[in-house]
């Protein structure tokens, strides 16, 4: 008996601890989110950082997004043609490309790619600052890390990632169109007819809503993981990995939730 109880605890306590850490993280991310919102009142004070972050997230990611979305559009066209051709009129290819890109592929693939580029970059940069006392240095200079680091990145995520998604949608549809009319025996007119028949503003709104949620979440999680990094270089590595994995999983979960609620 005397031995069983400690053994029981050594087995159960780690489980409890990781559960506790999970809730601690949810609480931490949520509270960082609200603190960052509160710092919005100082947006003029931190305007340089906001512009810098928007530039780095937006302009910095364009090349990557162009490549990813062009190929997404192209493969969608090929696959749509393959799936639809025997059973449906050709113009449905246009409809299928438009809807799947606007609703799903544009926002989700942009977000997943940016979880890698922006989320990991944010976590690594802020994590390095944290473990090398640069975050403390900000505090010592009477600069609030939430205002200086988190808020501008949150804005960049909320604004620039939807903007990139619009670009991605456009490029993917154009790429899909090009492939469709060149490799499948299909006219431009048919493609456009399909797109027009199945265009719903509602889809665009739902797609952009997804992009907006993903965008804020990617930079928020990256910032949170960075700010809570500890134990030197290894800790920064962990923070970076955690940021990408958490964002990727949450993107897919959120994607489902938004789809279920609004479609």
């Amino acid at each position, binding site marked *: 008996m005397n031995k069983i109880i400690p053994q029981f605890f050594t087995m159960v306590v780690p489980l409890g601890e990781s559960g506790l850490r999970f809730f601690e993280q949810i609480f931490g991310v949520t509270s960082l989110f609200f603190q960052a919102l509160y710092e919005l009142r100082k947006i003029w*004070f931190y305007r*340089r950082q906001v512009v810098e972050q928007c530039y780095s997230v937006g302009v910095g990611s364009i090349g990557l997004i162009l490549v990813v979305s062009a190929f997404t559009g192209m493969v969608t066209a090929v696959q749509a043609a393959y799936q639809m051709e025997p059973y449906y009129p050709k113009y449905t290819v246009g409809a299928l490309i438009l809807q799947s890109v606007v609703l799903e592929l544009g926002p989700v693939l942009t977000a997943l790619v940016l979880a890698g580029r922006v989320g990991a970059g944010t976590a690594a*940069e802020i994590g*390095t*600052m944290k473990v*090398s*006392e*640069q975050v*403390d*240095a900000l*505090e*010592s*200079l*009477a*600069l*609030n890390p939430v205002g200086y680091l988190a808020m501008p990145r949150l804005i960049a995520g909320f604004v620039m990632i939807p903007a990139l998604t619009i670009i991605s949608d456009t490029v993917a549809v154009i790429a899909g169109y090009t492939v469709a009319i060149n490799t499948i025996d299909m006219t431009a007119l048919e493609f456009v007819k399909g797109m027009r028949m199945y265009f719903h503003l509602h889809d665009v709104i739902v797609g952009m809503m997804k992009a907006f949620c993903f965008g804020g979440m990617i930079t928020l999680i990256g910032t949170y993981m960075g700010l809570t990094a500890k134990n030197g270089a290894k800790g920064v590595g962990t923070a970076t990995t955690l940021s990408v994995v958490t964002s990727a999983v949450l993107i897919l979960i959120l994607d489902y939730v938004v789809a279920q609620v609004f479609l």
Partner: protein
Amino acid sequence: MITFDHVYKRFNGNVVFNDLVFDVPDGITTVLLGPSGTGKSVFLKMIIGLISPDYGYVWIDDRNIVNLKTKYLYRIREQFGFVFQLSALFDSMSIYENIALPLKMHTQFNEESIYSKVNECLSLVDLEDAGHLYPEELSGGMKKRAAIARALVRDPKYILYDEPTTGLDPRTAAKIENLIIKVQQERKVTSVVVTHDLTSARRVGQYVALLTGGRIAIEGSPEELDESANQELRRFLNEIPQNESLL
């Protein structure tokens, strides 16, 4: 004046301060000595409110900063310059931008006055030509000097140094010590230096205190400490291999 008023602090059961009482005298350089892991960094971080005590007060110019609202705390921090152990320069910015940052964020100075102010600080620390370099391009000693320049740029009343000579070769360390003395004399700041380096303490300290076991074991002028037979001081001195075994 900085005052620690019966301060208690522990991290997960690890007691760091146990009824710490200490007054930092104004206008001179105070050295807080102590072995590694005794809470010297915590001491400095507590002064600017980065770490809060569990119990007790920290007074800055007759104002208790424990649980002070962020807005007021930040205003108090503007009177402080903090030189971190690893310098903590922002590595995405050049040295010039590092030093200019506090001015850009907190003052209405135009580019020209920022430029002249930053250059004044750069020349004080002998880095006139390094403004365009990035932290990774500097040696340890240069980084430390740049960090001192950044801490000084807003003419603080207090300047806090966390182990300013640790990890530097003796010549570079001596240079930093001279700089600490020069800053103290030219700017009339109140300096607090925490270190485990006796030679350094002896060179820069006008007032010296020994932190062990969560409180100040002994404090006084270097001469007073030289003559003291305080047991903990003797133990600390004996633990550290040193040519000159006295303060």
